[in-house]
């Protein structure tokens, strides 16, 4: 059959130009991911969407869907690796869900629940990270940043402002603000920017709104993230 491929034994239709992750989500098949966002160029940063195609581990978001390919996705082996990556993300930042207002709406937390991450497993790094409260409408808490790069892309590709950038390499990689002071308050960032809405965790949050959504009505309270492929396809509520 033309324009179909196989995920875990199931035929999945695709439109030419779609990547494996997009086609899977559109067909209601969940592939865990953090750094993919509809409308932004896939960058394969987080590696959560790693699948196996023809024996090779590849990122589903950066691999074009092709007729006839066979994709292994929801397997114990891959999910174990994804859980391990989540654990590394949790311990390499300072993620204290109990006090975080993103809790219940956080993609990292939702994936940890969905992939049944019971413990952090590794020792916490407790890194020293910065907080930037200089902007009148936004609060930046780099303790929670997972360097997915979505804010960098959104600010550059959509907002055309280039306010965010990634600096450093490897473990030292971190998000910086492209102003002489390094402060968000000195940029022309606005809460209406795309970059203000793409953060999968609680690193970029609007000020003075905290906890306005009650427990039970948050994005991932009712259904696990793996059951919300329609939302993840478009990100429209």
């Amino acid at each position, binding site marked *: 059959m033309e324009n179909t491929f196989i995920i875990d034994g199931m035929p999945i239709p695709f439109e030419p130009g779609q990547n494996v992750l997009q086609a899977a989500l559109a067909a209601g098949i969940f592939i865990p991911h953090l750094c993919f966002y509809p409308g932004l160029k896939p960058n394969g940063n987080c590696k959560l969407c790693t699948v196996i195609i023809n024996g090779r581990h590849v990122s589903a978001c950066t691999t074009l869907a092709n007729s006839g390919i066979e994709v292994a996705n929801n397997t114990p082996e891959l999910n174990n690796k994804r859980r391990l990556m989540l654990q590394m993300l949790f311990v390499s930042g300072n993620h204290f869900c109990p006090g975080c207002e993103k809790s219940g709406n956080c993609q990292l937390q939702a994936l940890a629940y969905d992939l049944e991450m019971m413990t952090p497993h590794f020792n916490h790094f407790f890194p020293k990270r910065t907080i930037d*409260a200089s902007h009148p409408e936004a609060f930046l808490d780099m303790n929670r940043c997972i360097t997915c790069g979505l804010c960098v892309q959104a600010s550059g590709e959509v907002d055309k402002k280039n306010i965010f950038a990634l600096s450093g390499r490897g473990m030292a990689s971190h998000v910086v603000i492209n102003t002489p002071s390094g402060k968000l308050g000195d940029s022309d960032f606005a809460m209406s920017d795309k970059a203000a809405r793409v953060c999968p965790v609680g690193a970029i949050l609007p*000020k003075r*709104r905290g906890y*306005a959504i009650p*427990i039970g009505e948050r994005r991932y309270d009712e259904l696990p993230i793996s059951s919300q492929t329609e939302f993840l396809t478009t990100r429209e509520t």
Partner: protein
Amino acid sequence: MFELENAKTTQGLRRIAIDPVSRVEGHGKVTLLLDEQNRIHQVRLHIVEFRGFEVLIKGRPYWEVPVTVERLCGICPVSHHLAACKAMDVIVGAKQLTPTAEKLRRLMHYGQLVQSNAVHFYHLASPDLLLGFDSEATQRNIVGVAMQYPDIAKQGILLRKYGQEVIQHVSGKRIHGTGAIPGGVNKALTAEARDELKKNLPQLIEWAQGGVALMQRFHEENPAFYNSFGLFESNMMGMVRADGALDIYHGDLRVKDAKGQPIFDRFNYETYAQVLREEVKPWSYMKFPYIAELGPEKGWYKVGPLARLQTCDFIPSPLAEAARKTMLAIGNGQPVHSTLSYHWARIIEVLHGLEVIQELLDDPDILGKDLTVKGERQEEGIGVIEAPRGVLIHHYKVNEDDQVTMCNLIVSTTHNNQAMNTAIRSVAMQHLDRRVISEGLLNHIECAIRAYDPCLSCATHALGKMPLQVELLDAEGTRLSILSRNSNGEFHTSEMYA
């Protein structure tokens, strides 16, 4: 200097430690110094755990504070949540909440009063009261109570469960919810939830009345013991509303002396920093508050159920007020100071909490949809509430970037620090002095502490101000040296052996 706080000399004295003190929240220990004739020379309640909320909250956005600080405690998180939120109401300029928001917060708070007081009365204290202070230690717990008094144990468990359900309906979770936000609440109560909560109330009120009757019976059957155990007189502090009634959510603070005469008929809690001081002692992480103008030796006071029920003029609910009058009658016109009366007062408050919940659920405002207000932004906010264990003070300063720059918490158990130390010294002299010490006798000390329902986790929230002591031990456990930091931040080293 308080009697039995410091022995004249520690040479030749034997040390007994109760470590940890059991059936209280958090971690503390009691040390006794005795001579060869078992005469007591020193008794101290040490708080040996150590936390850091006042420091870690600095830099955080103010709207995060009510949810972060409630993690101080798993028993009465609602108190910290609401005290912080009351302070943040001031920060966001919300001078008067909407009727619905205030009533929902009260509902959550009275739900907590019921659950917290019930867990203490039935789970933690009833084993001593029902089975005996020196009963078999392995049976002296809630399981032992359930074996011998299954109905009472069941009632206690269900009373607590109900209080938690009230909290869950308002805040989203039984423990550590998010119901209150600066300027109001984030969720309306549904009619279904209200009806669900109303369903079993008559039965619960009947059980609470049973608990009150039980405490009355204990006092009537053994007045000599119940009225004298750990007896000492002290000042008392509690919150009252404008007409002098007990109010655990909002009001002024009233302080009475040991004879029941007002020291402050009422003072605005926003002036607490002028009225109260805190003393630091090198042997405990918990501070010792006192009324500034009376000084540390005469200005200390007790808070919590027994203080509240005597600082107020009346309880604004009929069944609990009748029970209060019965309890106060044992004082023959004088204030009641006996330590075990705390339990009686606490179970009367469970009854009161249920009566208030009933009233709130019958109020049409409780289903309202107008939930938040805001006003002119302020830089400083103080929120005070009567937590189940007593007066709880939260004080914050917030900068123009919305970050917390200062946090001061004075929690209920801290107010009771001197009272608890005095109670255990009284019990030590009454029951342990010149006697062969047994486990049952040591439990008398714990019973005196337990009467205050202390939350030692809450009380040790400070960091950077407390004296610290680091001991260097060799492989055999012999102490080689001690590094101490006093309350001024100065370090001293004491070499034990050359």
